[in-house]
């Protein structure tokens, strides 16, 4: 962990009716730290992310961002959505400017910040295009630009590359790492891919069980900036194995609670 914790999740619990989804879940994300969250599908990792974003409410426990309790979405937090969530009736430029326009930011400032964000994610020349005219990869670049243009202190990534084809996904992973190296910020990265979790994260938090709790936290000691060669390193492969075992091995003494 580097620096103070930007995000603190303390004893979080969540129920859907009679179903316990999360229980006594605690974690932190540092000021310049990427924390990956992995877990089997249905384990509540996206729900946890939505609670941090203020879109869902916890039944117990507390979430604080820079000391502020999260009860509704905070302006210092941005989210990148699994299915992009671009408005089909707005062109790329207006989609990316959406958050700034809602805050009545001055025109010239919007102009400047949106142009910079478009440049950063490599969408120059597509400002006037509509989402339905673009590939999934390009749409998610726009989703990323829309989040980054707000200059968030915490970036929430909800399986951002899972709806994108495999080759584009790899490309976007390294581009996100490049962008993060330019302006590092706290990031919570939810994914169902172990490779992606290890590649992106400074730490990997493994959620499992019913209800979900933190089964393991692995520190990723891979060098930054992360180059493509890192995925072939023995350190990467070893970590991937550890996380795999964290996810799928039956923990001793707790086996009855984990379905096979």
């Amino acid at each position, binding site marked *: 962990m580097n620096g103070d914790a930007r995000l603190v999740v303390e004893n979080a619990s969540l129920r859907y009716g009679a179903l316990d989804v999360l229980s006594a879940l605690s974690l932190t994300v540092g000021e310049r730290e990427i924390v990956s969250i992995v877990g089997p599908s249905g384990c509540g990792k996206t729900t946890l992310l*939505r609670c941090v*974003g*203020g*879109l869902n409410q916890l039944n117990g426990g507390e979430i604080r961002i820079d000391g502020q309790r999260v009860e*509704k*979405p905070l*302006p210092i*937090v*941005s*989210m990148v*959505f699994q*299915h*992009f*969530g671009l*408005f*089909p*009736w707005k062109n790329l430029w207006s989609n990316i400017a*959406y*958050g700034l326009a*809602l*805050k009545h930011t001055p025109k010239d400032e919007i102009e400047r910040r949106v142009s910079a964000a478009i440049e950063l994610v490599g969408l120059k020349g597509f400002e006037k295009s*509509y*989402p*339905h005219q673009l590939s999934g990869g390009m749409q998610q670049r726009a989703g990323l630009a*829309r989040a980054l243009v*707000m200059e968030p202190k915490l970036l929430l990534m909800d399986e951002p590359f899972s709806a994108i084809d495999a080759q584009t996904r790899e490309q976007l992973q390294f581009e996100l790492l490049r962008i993060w190296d330019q302006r590092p910020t706290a990031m919570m990265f939810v994914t169902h891919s172990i490779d992606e979790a290890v590649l992106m994260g400074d730490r990997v938090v493994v959620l499992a069980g019913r209800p979900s709790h933190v089964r393991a936290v692995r520190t990723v000691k891979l060098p930054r900036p992360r180059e493509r060669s890192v995925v072939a390193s023995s350190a990467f492969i070893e970590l991937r194995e550890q996380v795999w075992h964290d996810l799928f091995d039956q923990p001793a003494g707790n086996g009855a609670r984990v379905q096979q």
Partner: protein
Amino acid sequence: MSAMRRPRWATRERLAPVVAGLVLMAIWEIWVRATLPDFVARPSGIVMAIPSTVASLEFWFDVAATLGSILEGVIIGSAVGVLIGVAMGRVREIDWFLSTYIRALYALPLVALVPIVILWVGYQPAARLIIVIISVFLPVAVTTADGTRAINKDYLDVGMMFGARTRDVWFGIALPSAMPFIVAGIELGFARGITNAIAVEVLASVKGMGMSVFTKSNELNENASLVYVVCLAIFAVGVRAGMIRFRHWLAPWYRGSH
């Protein structure tokens, strides 16, 4: 089939309705000439009646009165329908209060209301306008309510995350995402508006194209009567084509049935 034949096949598809129309008119023409008296309308008679009908000031007065009233009614009815529809779609309580009545009226043939409207405003063009407004308002309110209720949840999440207030959700998300529904409602309202405008003219003796269809026919000038009918048909077809373009312009992302 060789690749060369493709364009010919497409042309034939387009020619088919023209051929069908010509055959039908030929049958009509021959039938009337062979078996019916002279004053009964036939295609050649309608064509011959066009110059004299179109040359009369009365014709243009009728067109302006009827189509003007329909367009005015569509604009007012759509505007009110969209506002009420968004309110019903986004506020559950408003939907509870209004939904039953709007949907009941929607299912009712509005011609049934004509006598009541005549009682209110008399045998006046205002009766036609009111009926057209109601004809358009109802389907637009219903489709707008359905469209704004069924917003993709992702859009709402994005709105919340980026700090959208209620009015930003209504007019910035719900309304544009419901646009294809709203246009469908206006299209339906337009068709009903045309039908009911003509019905009011006939039932309340309000001057216009519909009334002239009947007066010409009663004067045994069937050909002139049918010139009006053809003009109404052209208007209806034009409205439909216009609405498809309108939707494509408003909602280019939407891939509907046509």
